[in-house]
């Protein structure tokens, strides 16, 4: 594709710049209309739409394609709100309302001595979630994200992250898997929190087979291997969009990845199975905001 045209593909920088423009210039009282229009426009993005519809067929077996089409719009609508809230937070530090579910587990995480892995999913605004967490906790959070595929978008995102710099929050992109693993291990051993998204496997990342909605799915092995090596618990934590500018931070019981047998993979599998169950439960209740635009399982619905 011609270089300058690349900025207009769906992962291109044009849309990120457009989002920033919108956050700066759109009056908040007409925001819902603008978001509704753009969520509709992005339904033209075939691969993303088909990916969500495929996942919805697996999440809701027996559902009709036409119903899933409208459900897909709801996913796009929620995604649009989530990225808008994130961009607004970066630009103006505007914070939404928060509800905390699983307070006892959140308290346990706050009071936990030493490092911990926070395992989350592509739901709600995980950027704001991490920022809220870093403001309420005295420890540094290291957030691991998949890098943008487009170099201009990556540069733009990194410059935005740099502008909205927060001393309690560091963002690392998992471009160099082995180096990053050592850095994260060191970070955990220093007593920091490491937040990783555990619902998607990007190319080059080690994975473990698991089941999600009774279909085979691959889960990233990294977070569990890291927790095992650092001997720290894994806290499943989800940022769920509960309404306009309202989010729910759901903290689940910690998963302890302990070496019990001679076979490391068996111990990892047990933890991954527990994570898959938590993930499935949250997605079942909040399918409309699971931002997985690629099929999570190749199995037919």
């Amino acid at each position: 594709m011609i270089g300058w045209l690349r900025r207009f593909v769906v992962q291109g920088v044009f849309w990120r710049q457009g989002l920033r423009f919108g956050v700066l210039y759109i009056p908040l009282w007409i925001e819902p209309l603008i978001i509704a229009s753009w969520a509709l426009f992005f339904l033209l993005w075939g691969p993303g739409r088909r990916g969500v519809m495929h996942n919805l067929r697996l999440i809701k077996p027996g559902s009709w394609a036409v119903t899933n089409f409208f459900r897909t719009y709801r996913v796009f609508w929620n995604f649009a709100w989530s990225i808008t809230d994130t961009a607004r937070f970066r630009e103006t530090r505007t914070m939404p309302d928060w509800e905390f579910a699983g307070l006892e587990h959140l308290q346990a995480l706050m009071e936990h001595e030493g490092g911990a892995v926070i395992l989350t999913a592509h739901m709600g605004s995980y950027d704001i979630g991490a920022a809220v967490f870093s403001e309420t906790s005295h420890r540094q959070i290291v957030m691991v994200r998949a890098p943008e595929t487009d170099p201009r978008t990556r540069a733009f995102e990194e410059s935005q992250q740099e502008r909205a710099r927060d001393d309690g929050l560091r963002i690392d992109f998992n471009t160099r898997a082995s180096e990053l693993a050592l850095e994260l291990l060191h970070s955990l051993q220093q007593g920091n929190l490491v937040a990783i998204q555990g619902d998607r496997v990007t190319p080059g990342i080690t994975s473990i087979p698991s089941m999600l909605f009774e279909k085979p799915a691959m889960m990233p092995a990294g977070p569990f291997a890291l927790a095992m090596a650092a001997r720290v618990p894994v806290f499943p934590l989800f940022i769920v969009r509960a309404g306009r500018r309202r989010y729910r931070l759901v903290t689940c019981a910690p998963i302890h990845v302990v070496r019990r047998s001679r076979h490391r993979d068996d111990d990892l599998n047990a933890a991954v199975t527990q994570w898959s169950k938590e993930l499935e439960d949250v997605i079942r209740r909040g399918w409309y905001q699971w931002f997985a635009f690629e099929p999570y399982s190749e199995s037919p619905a």
Partner: protein
Amino acid sequence: MRVVRDRAEARWLPSRFDFALFRLFAYIRLRRTRPEPRPGIALAVERHQSALENFLVPVVGLIVLAAFIATLIDESLPLGTACALALPAAAMLMNVQVLVVGVLLIPIVSRLPRRQAETGQAVNSFIMLVVVIGAATLLSVDPSPLRRIGTAFLLLAGANAVAFVCLLLLQRSIAEAEARYGVEP
């Protein structure tokens, strides 16, 4: 960051609302509501936090603009068809207006010594309000049955102006009520 923790009734803090009518309504609710302690919530004190307000206002604006556009084309089309075409056209007009003002006008206005976000939103908000009020005024004098929409909107705008005056008179008591939640003016 202004946040009220563990008190659900703080959702009625007037500072969480934007338009005067909603702020006044919120103040009345705040005075009448009982304390609702709810551990595990944190409510942001920002003027656009109300979902009801922020969905209702754009829908009203969209209806007024759509009705105005429908009156422009209803001579050549049946009223129902004109309304059906006018709705997406009004939504598109709002999108285009934001874009045009943002690209052409705001670079000039943003030289004023204010923050970029506030300037951009304020200019666009002002122009959008002028467009909607202008459309409602022209609509209200149109012979079409849709004129009632224009009249209703103007009455609503008038009520908002009255609410604004009430808020000015109640300024001190609102500040006192909000101070109980740790919200400084």
